[in-house]
């Protein structure tokens, strides 16, 4: 029944939605930021521990749709151990892929994140996929304010 939509809702997405990784408060975070998608009311609190320009740990809390929860969960797994510059590069690439700006179908460098490429066919849902990433970018810039996808 939902054959076509399986591009968007892949098993990995369901898995990370059911069991989001790094879904916890981080007491010793060096940075914490609240992200908000005013379109749908999704909220995320992102915790980041940066040590010597390297992301040692990322975790999140909040409520969102399957796409935004899975995207946040996958992101926390992927950026750990990367430098801030590398993370910025990943965000750039991820953003291009989910908005369709980069139309490739093979993204080895993105690993599991590639499952979210299907979002490009659903423009209304791009913001769901990018909320966690926008929040991370803001956290790395040490923005004080709540970040919004608008």
């Amino acid at each position, binding site marked *: *029944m*939902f054959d*076509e*939509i399986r591009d*968007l*809702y892949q098993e990995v997405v*369901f898995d990370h939605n*059911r069991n989001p990784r790094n879904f916890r408060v981080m007491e010793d975070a060096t940075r914490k930021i609240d992200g908000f998608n005013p*379109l*749908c*009311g*999704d*909220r995320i609190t992102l915790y980041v521990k940066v040590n010597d320009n390297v992301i040692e740990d990322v975790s999140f809390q909040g*409520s*969102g*749709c*399957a*796409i935004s*929860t899975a995207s946040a969960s996958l992101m926390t797994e992927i950026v750990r151990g990367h430098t801030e510059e590398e993370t910025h590069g990943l965000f750039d690439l991820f953003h291009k892929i989910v908005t369709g700006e980069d139309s490739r179908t093979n993204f080895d460098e993105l690993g599991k994140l590639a499952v979210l490429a299907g979002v490009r066919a*659903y423009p*209304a*849902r791009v913001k*769901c996929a990018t909320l966690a990433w926008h929040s991370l970018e803001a956290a790395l810039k040490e923005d004080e304010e709540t970040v919004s996808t608008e």
Partner: protein
Amino acid sequence: MTLSLDVAKIRQDFPILNETIHGRPLVYLDNAASTQKPKAVLDTLRHVYEHDYANVHRGVHTLSQRSTDLFEGARKKVKDFINARKIEEIIFVRGTTEAVNLVAQSYGRSKLQPGDEILITAMEHHSNIVPWQILCQQTGAVLKVAPINLSGEIIMEEFEALLTERTKLVSVVHMSNALGTINPVKRIIELAHSKGVPVMLDGAQAIPHMVVDVQDLDCDFYAFSGHKLCGPSGIGVLYGKEALLKAMPPWQGGGDMIRMVTFDKTEYNTLPYKFEAGTPAIAEAIGLGAAVDYLQTIGMDKIAEYEHQLLEYATTKALEIPSLKVIGTAKEKGAILGFTLHHIHPHDIGTMLDQLGIAVRAGHHCAMPVMDFFGVPATARASFSFYNTTEEVDTLIDGIKQIIEVFG
């Protein structure tokens, strides 16, 4: 069950209902956001532009006269539709939002003093919250909010307690877009009037679903949008009692709203033109007139009765799904079914239903305070119109069941 409308026949009036979405017949259940348009309205728009169009209230030429006659004819139709006393009481605006802003900026700004209060309810759409917040910042007035209960009904004792000698205006939604609640507006108006307080009703949701008689209600202002009433977007109506409108200063300045202009002073036009600066949405207003005609051939009482049957049917079916929670369970309710599913976000529901050809709204419905009250970030909302069928309800329910299965 025996249904009170010949819906199969009505559906033939709406060309868009023949669309297929993702290879399936469209099931349009987002009527609270906007309604689809019958051929009568589409044909009218086309006819106006092909045969009658020019600017209104200006030229001496034939087309300008035709346009003006049709435009003013539409005003008369709207006046009769809501049973206003006079055509002077019908102000054409862009929509409900603009009507509320007009009252806030013209009536409110000229009347309110620091410490005065405006009373609304906890179930208002943002468009009946933000214009008053802006007005409060401008005047030093205070916005008071009457609370609601868990069924989504105004707690009337609390409302009464908040209605004091400081209250200068009450503005309440007639029917809630997020919850479907139909408020006891006659009672609210009686209570407010007993203290000399005028009442504005946000009728955006109520007007497509029931008979609205502004004289019977005795409301002071009534606002609604054409596009939720099978009419075009970009046109809406502010009804106001003539005495109030007469005493109010103009809101926007420009052409059409003046009688005489010199650089020293300007004499304003009479009602309703005093509030209609600039070229109005001409064809849209005429289209709204056609929509009103169309709805009256069916009958608003018949529409209300049928939609009530449809809501009952949908609610009963929805409640058979164990993980489904209905948000908005007021005793008096219009044809809106807001719901959440355990562990499945409304946005996922919306995208998946769309895959099955079903259009619903998912989100906060421009009523974030309502979502906060019910402790949900968003809801999914199926909102019905008289052209929807019980078969479409079945498709929706079946779709919801499939989503639950896929999410596991």
